[in-house]
């Protein structure tokens, strides 16, 4: 439900970056989103479409969402391991003092834009 709010921030930021580069159109936005966040790909896509559809500058732009698998480091044995959303235990030593090193990110990686012809 908060994807619309999140996506409003994304669209504002990418528009500003595209205009600063002198672009005439926004073609594509690439995001990285950790699986441990509460942001859902389909809801992000829906919000993106709703927010880009009525502006000729952004209309038809593509959204690419790369989901990042959670990864933790065990602070007891030092092992680094991927895991799902539900189990954080270290698979090597069963340790439970662990630190999440990936899986909570929400980042705008890059955009593709059209530039005016020379």
């Amino acid at each position, binding site marked *: 439900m908060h994807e619309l709010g999140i996506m409003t921030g*994304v669209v504002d*930021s990418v528009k500003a970056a595209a205009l600063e580069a002198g672009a005439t159109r926004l073609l594509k936005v690439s*995001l990285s989103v950790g699986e441990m*966040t*509460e*942001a859902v790909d389909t809801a992000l896509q829906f919000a993106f479409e709703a927010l880009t559809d009525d502006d000729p500058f952004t209309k038809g732009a593509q959204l690419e969402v790369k989901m990042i698998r959670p990864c933790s480091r065990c602070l007891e044995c030092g092992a680094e391991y991927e895991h799902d959303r539900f189990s954080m235990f270290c698979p090597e030593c069963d340790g439970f003092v662990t630190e999440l090193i990936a899986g909570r990110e929400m980042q705008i*990686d*890059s955009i593709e834009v059209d530039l005016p012809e020379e």
Partner: protein
Amino acid sequence: MHIDMKQPILAKNDSLAAQLRARFAENHVFVLDILASPGSGKTSTILATIDALRDEFNIAVIEGDIASSVDAEKIKAQGIPAVQINTGGACHLESAMIKRAIDVLDLERLDLIIIENVGNLVCPTDFDLGENAKVMILSVPEGDDKPLKYPGVFQIAEAVILNKVDTMPVFNFNNEAFVESVTRLNPQAPIFPISATTGQGVEEWTNWLADQIRKA
């Protein structure tokens, strides 16, 4: 043309949250963000917490709700400063709302600010408010399977409160299964079984909280 951005999506919220965190630290205020479903007993738990800690700490409460000031009135009736934020439909609090709320609080004389987030187990988990700790409350009637359905909120919590434990015999709540799934999701978080209205278990919770406030 390809333009690299590498910019956090919630950059605006996160940088404001960092500013708030610095301001809280400067004023030696501990900030607790409480996440839970509607009806889980957030306000009752806050009232019980105030009761236990008000002799030692100066406390204020920020109430986040979509509408109404019912909760803030309950807190004010106890002689505790309370600020009501109405999100007007938004499903979570953001740091800009907290910034406006603390403008009316006297940070210098406060030791503890309790933020009661909007009743929601999903969206508030993604928003940093500059707090020292997020704590989540689940109540027994909601069922022991909630950690499996809403893993994010159980993962981000520094501690988990299980409220309304006095109703356990009525609701067929499998405590063992609950503790096991919380422990898998968040092995480091303590679990406090309490009943905010009877007072059962409240002391263990408030002792833990008092320790966190003193350590901060």
